């Protein structure tokens, strides 16, 4: 049973509404303090967990995938340089900039900001928020894994039907 729990945990990342609500609150506070436009929490596979703040023009999924890919590449660079990983990454543009921070082992916090604030402010407030987000995610990870995915029992059958409709 323990092995099954471990397997499920390693193969699924489940976020419940209550957890995401706590994460949202934390990110909202960070946005207010740092003056950033918006922030995403992304798992390291590139899936979006939550987004707060202003909407961005482009596809959120694409941004999430690129942030995860970029961070993964950075991590590989760090490894080649003898570091475990680089915990932060920032890209500065003329109008918009993005700061990415590693949150725990499995998530990334990306913050988009403009001229209303600066990188120092964003970094300063992100440090504490990342620590608290890490605690939340660690708590989620440490929770006893569910024996099932929590999805409806007819999920697979419904999905097959959806596939038939789509293709």
């Amino acid at each position, binding site marked *: 049973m323990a092995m099954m729990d471990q397997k499920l945990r390693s193969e*699924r990342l489940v976020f419940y*509404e209550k957890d995401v609500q706590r994460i949202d609150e934390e990110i909202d506070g960070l946005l207010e303090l740092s003056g950033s436009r918006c922030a995403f929490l992304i798992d390291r*596979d590139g899936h979006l967990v939550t987004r707060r703040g202003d909407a961005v023009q482009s596809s959120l999924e694409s941004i999430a995938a690129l942030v995860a890919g970029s961070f993964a590449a950075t991590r590989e660079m760090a490894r080649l340089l003898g570091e475990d990983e680089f915990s932060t990454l920032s890209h500065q543009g003329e109008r918009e900039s993005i700061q990415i921070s590693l949150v725990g082992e499995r998530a990334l916090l990306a913050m988009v900001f403009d001229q209303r604030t600066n990188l120092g402010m964003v970094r300063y407030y992100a440090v504490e928020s990342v620590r608290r987000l890490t605690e939340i995610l660690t708590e989620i990870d440490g929770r006893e894994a569910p024996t099932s*995915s*929590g999805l409806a029992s007819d*999920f697979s059958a419904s999905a097959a039907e959806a596939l038939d409709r789509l293709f």
Partner: protein
Amino acid sequence: MVQINFAQKQVNAKVVYYGPGMSGKTTNLEIVHQRAPTPNRGDLTSISTDGDRTLFFDFMPLDLGTVAGMRTCFQLYTVPGQVYYNSTRKLVLQGVDGVVFVADSSASMVEENLESMRNLEQNLAEYGKSLATMPLIIQFNKRDLPDALPVEELQRLLNPYNAPCFEAIANSGQGVFPTLKALAARVLESIHTGSRPAPAAGIQAGLTQTGFHQPPAIPAAGAPRTLQQTGYNPAPSIPMQQSAPQQGHPQQGHPQPALQGQGVGMQPAMAMQPGHGQPGMMSPQMHQQDALSRTTVHAPPMQGGMQPGMQSISMGGGQQQQQQQQPMHGQAPIQGGMQQPMQHPGMMHPQMQVPGPIPQQQQQQHPQMQQQQLQQTGYGYAPQGMGGLQPGMQMHPAPAATMAQQQAQAQPNLQMLRVDKGQAGPAAAQKPRAVAQAKPAPKSAAKPTSKAAAQAAPSAPAEAAPRIQPRNQPMATPGSGKKRLVYAGVFVVIALGVGAFVAKMVLSVL
């Protein structure tokens, strides 16, 4: 890794198109993007080279719609197929939930297909996953090529896990959606079970109408097909390994021959570091690291707890050892070579055999300098360095100017190792000062000199000091003759003066 987000009522899964370069992975994604209903598809993002070769990945989200109250999305990725980009390929595989292996059906691409399959297995293994349990679909693409291998042959070579497979001509879109549909079904099935689902009857029935090929039945009584029998040899090939940036890191489960090949490949690369053969242009740190990378000979004297500035002394010592290797190996003697024993008494013996004129000042200087070096560098250092660094030292011919400067100052610093010949003048100008320092104790140095030579070069220690004498004496003669004449003249003048004075006094008394 499937993400189930109950807050956003969303299920996300990651699907990766894998395969050798130019097999049609990006084309598959482009066709999906072109033909999927607009509400279901997201932007197609490509990170590619100028030549439209995938550099990192192509990405496209595909929304399946709401399934059992959850918005179900697939994130479709492709990887760069070229062998060179293995590190980025591996990154894209992180958290993968299902793989489409796009094989090139061409007969000339068999080896590339096999290599890519091996590489997929290796990269998945690094994430603790296996093709045996991962939802996998194999697509035999480019079926319209004239030299396309029969499907049965490709099955035998590339499908050891009996994964469902499809024929496709991705350019025209044929077989693209059946492939994706089959994989999506398997991934969704695996969300419930957390492992590879058994082939669902519904999928199988549907696939038979869309070009699905049933995998060859495994003989019930026979032994299970092994990887070798199917042509899918998990042993990584050396070309694949050599191209991977992680060459130096042994990976679990990889056969040893490949690792040995890596090791052999790494050594020449290390030996050909830029500036390796030009110590004069190399920073001391580089020199030190380089030497340490080849051998740890430098470490013992450094750890020996010598005086402050030990590192610079060690560097100078290392440099000198290199210089002194040259006469020992029959190469041309270095001008001013006698300056070296003054820096390192332990190194004196081989250098003394170098023929050539030796200035008298240097003879006077070197016993004192030897004593200084004994105190500064530790007596046992030189033999250790000579013994261990010989191969590497031959690669570092030292400029004569560097040696001159080392001789000029008792403690060579790191900057001196970078001095070129044009800076030899100031170094030479400092010689008188060194001579002056050496003069106060010239006699006491003779004994330590022979002792130093005895410990540094046990093979012929006692001859070191005597052998230098015959060379020194004739060289000292011309310089002292003039002094004698001067002294004699002065003596004569004084004697005449004294004589005259005495004579005058005698005469005055009388």
